[in-house]
């Protein structure tokens, strides 16, 4: 009797246990997400609509109060400095992303073509810079950009040629793009190469029997097949481009061409820590985050419609 009574009870307890378990197991992830991603974003949103009002001389604890600012911070944040920094980053992305992905794709296709030799050496060597932090790679290239150190200047000098200074105002954007290219091309190459390797090779065999050249196979079969990998590398590269910060910050001691608001994130940093203008920094952060998400969304939509439209 007792056993009959207890059996359904424990089954119910079991069921309740079953219902709670996934939530308990997700708890660490959810708590971390809420505390370190959601809360900072919400807090920044709140700050972006606030300003500090100073009454009298601003002395004493009652002299400073926080008041609602409406869109004042946003209007203040979108100043010429910010607009200029956004323009610079867009140009930088236009230089960097196609070059980096183009080279990565070229290297990946060559590695996959089985016609190149010493592929293990090249693959590891090209991937290696990914292990070098942006600060260190900027430091290395920063020295290599100095005419007194760079072997390029040394050779050009011996040839009697006058080389333009790469860290000058007009060219520094290429100097920074080169650092990011150096650090990123190998990673993207590995991603593309991994997808290429996942394709069963009999597809290529069939094309070869039909008389397709290696070039045709690369353009007509390989590239379309790894399109999802290309989309993801493009997306991640664009997001990384928008947040360029470490490279220009590290190069600054070596050149006068980089202002404190050279990129949007540098401007946010300046507003928050040099000017103590938290409201403007918060508003700029929100604008950058929204722009990033918007660009990602539009990009995915456009690409999905173009490349994968037939699948829907």
């Amino acid at each position, binding site marked *: 009797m007792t056993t009959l009574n207890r059996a359904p009870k424990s089954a119910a307890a079991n069921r309740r246990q079953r219902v709670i378990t996934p939530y308990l197991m997700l708890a660490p992830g959810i708590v971390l997400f809420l505390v370190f991603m959601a809360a900072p*974003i919400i807090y920044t949103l709140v700050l972006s609509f606030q300003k500090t009002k100073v009454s009298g001389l601003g002395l004493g604890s009652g002299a400073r109060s926080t008041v609602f600012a409406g869109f004042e911070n946003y209007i203040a944040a979108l100043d010429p400095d910010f607009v200029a920094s956004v323009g610079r980053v867009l140009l930088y992305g236009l230089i960097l992303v196609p070059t980096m992905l183009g080279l990565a794709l070229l290297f990946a296709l060559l590695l996959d073509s089985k016609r190149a030799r010493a592929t293990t050496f090249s693959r590891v060597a090209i991937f290696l810079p990914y292990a070098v932090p942006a600060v260190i790679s900027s430091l*290395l*290239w920063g020295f290599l950009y100095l005419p007194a*150190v760079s072997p390029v200047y040394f050779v050009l000098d011996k040839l009697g040629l006058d080389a333009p200074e790469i860290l000058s105002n007009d060219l520094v954007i290429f100097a920074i793009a080169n650092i990011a290219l150096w650090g990123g091309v190998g990673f993207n190459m590995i991603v593309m190469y991994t997808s290429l390797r996942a394709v069963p090779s009999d597809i290529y065999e069939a094309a070869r029997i039909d008389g397709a050249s290696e070039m045709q196979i690369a353009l007509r079969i390989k590239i379309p097949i790894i399109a999802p990998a290309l989309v993801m590398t493009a997306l991640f590269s664009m997001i990384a481009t928008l947040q360029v910060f470490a490279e220009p910050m590290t190069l600054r001691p070596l050149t006068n061409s980089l202002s404190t608001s050279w990129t949007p994130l540098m401007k946010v940093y300046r507003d928050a820590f040099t000017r103590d203008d938290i409201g403007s920094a918060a508003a700029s952060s929100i604008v950058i985050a929204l722009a990033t998400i918007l660009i990602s969304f539009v990009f995915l939509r456009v690409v999905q419609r173009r490349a994968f439209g037939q699948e829907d």
Partner: protein
Amino acid sequence: MSLVPTLDKPQRSLERPSVVATAVLIVGAVYCLFPILWVVMASTKDGGELFSTFTLAPSTHLFHNIVELTEYRGGLFWRWMLNTALYAGVGSILSAYVSALSGYVLAKFNFPGKKGVFSILLMGVLVPGVILAIPQYLLFANFGLTNTYWAVLLPQIISPYGIYLARIYAAASVPTDVIEAARTEGARELYVFHRIALPMMAPGLVTIFLFQFVAIWNNFMLPYIMLGNDALFPLTVGLNGLLNQGATVPALYTLVITGALLSVIPLVLIFLVLQRYWRVDLAAGAVKA
């Protein structure tokens, strides 16, 4: 019979080595190795030779430079190295574990709100960590937690992308009937996860661990913003500061360069050892999701 040779022939001729293909890859490899070769050479020079001798000509001061770097402010550089190892090592192990647990639940359980959790997570993938750094600072400052180890360690444990990858690995490598069998035998859910699912997901988890390890090791903005005490700095922030001082004290340049060389070595070693785990399939299921 006659068909076999004709099929065989073009195939062999297609795999004939191409000089151009090899050359292009070698040029790429040389470009990528060049700054590393430079830093190896430059760290053997003393302050005067750095700007006066030919860039790639080695000198004999490497040992002296390392000693000098070690003596700099009572071994501060090695402290930075240990800090970096702590941030990256502990942070990425915790990150891989939390990602594995969350990804496993999202792949293998059905519960109300699952779709919502996953959608929010995907949004999290698009929000770049760097943009969160200043908001995180502002929030931490409220609780007086800036300028501590926690300020750098904790925010980097959560990785929406890691969870996303772990979900793919769990769905692909842990068979549902194995889980069911363990449950019927009365195994608790955490036991099933730790003893059955985790080992099956291990190769994928190494990739997540590596991803996060490199991300934390390379991170500059978060520690740069969070920390003021240079005893807590990771290498990136420490060397950046040293380079900044070098603008006025050029003698520090040799220290910066030697420091750069030494700080690259551990990560390069990890890369070479764990090379085969870099099977990064960013797109696996991404566009379908």
